[in-house]
């Protein structure tokens, strides 16, 4: 029986492991894929206090090694389900079952899909969710970005320096992104805004060739030939497996209070998976520390 099991080895989960281990608790971290979470996709982190320029990979690797050095076990095994038995919780992984006194869910979030035909089939063949990863494949080509938040505007900005033309397709005519960044983007000659519109169709057999964009107000459908579509329409939490375990809000986030407690005693939630107003590296880590400290108080 472990004192604490953490599900997810992103910044929230690994920080929870540090605080749990340093409180003298036995800690197991279970991760489905690889450590680091979404931050590994960021080439340069520029808003982390006192570390003005650090790559996401280096950051995640330092954090991972810090956790290992504390004697925490990290297993790469997907968690399928978990059950509350009061005194202990039972965690069902793909290969094993584990018992723990407390459970910290730090499952994070994944890219939201558009949910249209061929989206999965053309991913890696013109459809991408990561401009900084895949942008350089589209040098001097025509691309589009869809979304209206900070990531979409940053992606469009980044791509406008590489690609011959960038369309920014957004379902509204106002942006969640910072005004300054939108104004900056509007100044670029090779960026065209298509507003009040959704991407409604992807064309191409092995490689993306064009997209169809539908204006929500006029219902006009326009076909745009291009090589790349970058989808930046936000994140979805990965909490489906825990729907029967803890209370989840209508957007899929696990409901938590200031101490990262869920409605079930002994089960905590940290990072992007929980209800909160700001999902950032620094807030994920803060959650991890709080959740592990709360968990460590349980005898």
């Amino acid at each position, binding site marked *: 029986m472990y004192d604490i099991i953490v599900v997810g080895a992103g910044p929230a989960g690994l920080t929870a492991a540090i605080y749990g281990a340093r409180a003298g608790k036995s800690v197991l971290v279970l991760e489905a894929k690889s450590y680091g979470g979404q931050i*590994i996709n960021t*080439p340069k982190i520029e808003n982390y206090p006192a570390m003005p320029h650090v790559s996401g990979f280096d950051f995640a690797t330092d954090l991972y090694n810090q956790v290992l050095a504390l004697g925490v076990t990290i297993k790469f095994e997907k968690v399928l389900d978990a059950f509350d038995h009061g005194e202990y919780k039972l965690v069902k992984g793909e290969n094993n079952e584990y018992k723990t006194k407390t459970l910290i869910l730090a499952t994070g979030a994944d890219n939201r899909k558009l949910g249209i035909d061929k989206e999965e089939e053309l991913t*890696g063949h013109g459809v991408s969710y990561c401009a900084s990863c895949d942008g350089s494949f589209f040098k001097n080509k025509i691309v589009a970005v869809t979304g209206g938040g900070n990531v979409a505007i940053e992606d469009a900005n980044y791509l406008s320096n590489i690609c011959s033309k960038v369309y920014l397709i957004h379902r509204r005519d106002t942006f969640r992104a910072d005004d300054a960044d939108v104004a900056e983007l509007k100044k670029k000659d090779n960026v065209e805004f298509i507003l009040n519109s959704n991407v409604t169709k992807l064309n191409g057999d092995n490689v993306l060739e064009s997209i169809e964009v539908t204006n929500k107000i006029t219902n006009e459908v326009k076909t745009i030939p291009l090589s790349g579509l970058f989808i930046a329409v936000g994140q979805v939490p990965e909490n489906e497996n825990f729907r029967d375990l803890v209370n989840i809000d209508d957007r899929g986030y696990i409901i938590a209070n200031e101490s990262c407690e869920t409605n079930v005693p002994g089960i905590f939630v940290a990072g992007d998976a929980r209800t909160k107003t700001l999902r950032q590296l620094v807030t994920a880590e803060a959650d991890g520390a709080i959740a592990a400290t709360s968990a460590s108080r349980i005898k």
Partner: protein
Amino acid sequence: MIELKSSNFNDEISKGKVLVDFNATWCGPCKMMAPILEATSGEVKDIKFAGLDIDDNEDIAIKYNVMSIPTLILFVDGKEIKRSVGLISHDELIDFLK
């Protein structure tokens, strides 16, 4: 893991089963993929594991329509049999190679 280049690519993949990892130095998920490939190569003996830097060997990336990294392509006697796009876990890689 063998390091492939445009000059030796065709030769290296021409015989048997070869898994090629298309990657780049600036790609975080590729760096995450590397130790997973390394560990798996020790377990799967009948497949040759190889890597290709897409910046140094752009012609090969274009030839195989690689537009996202990491991309893994399994070749058998020089022919593409399967591909997987994006970071995958050790277990997913084992499944992919079956």
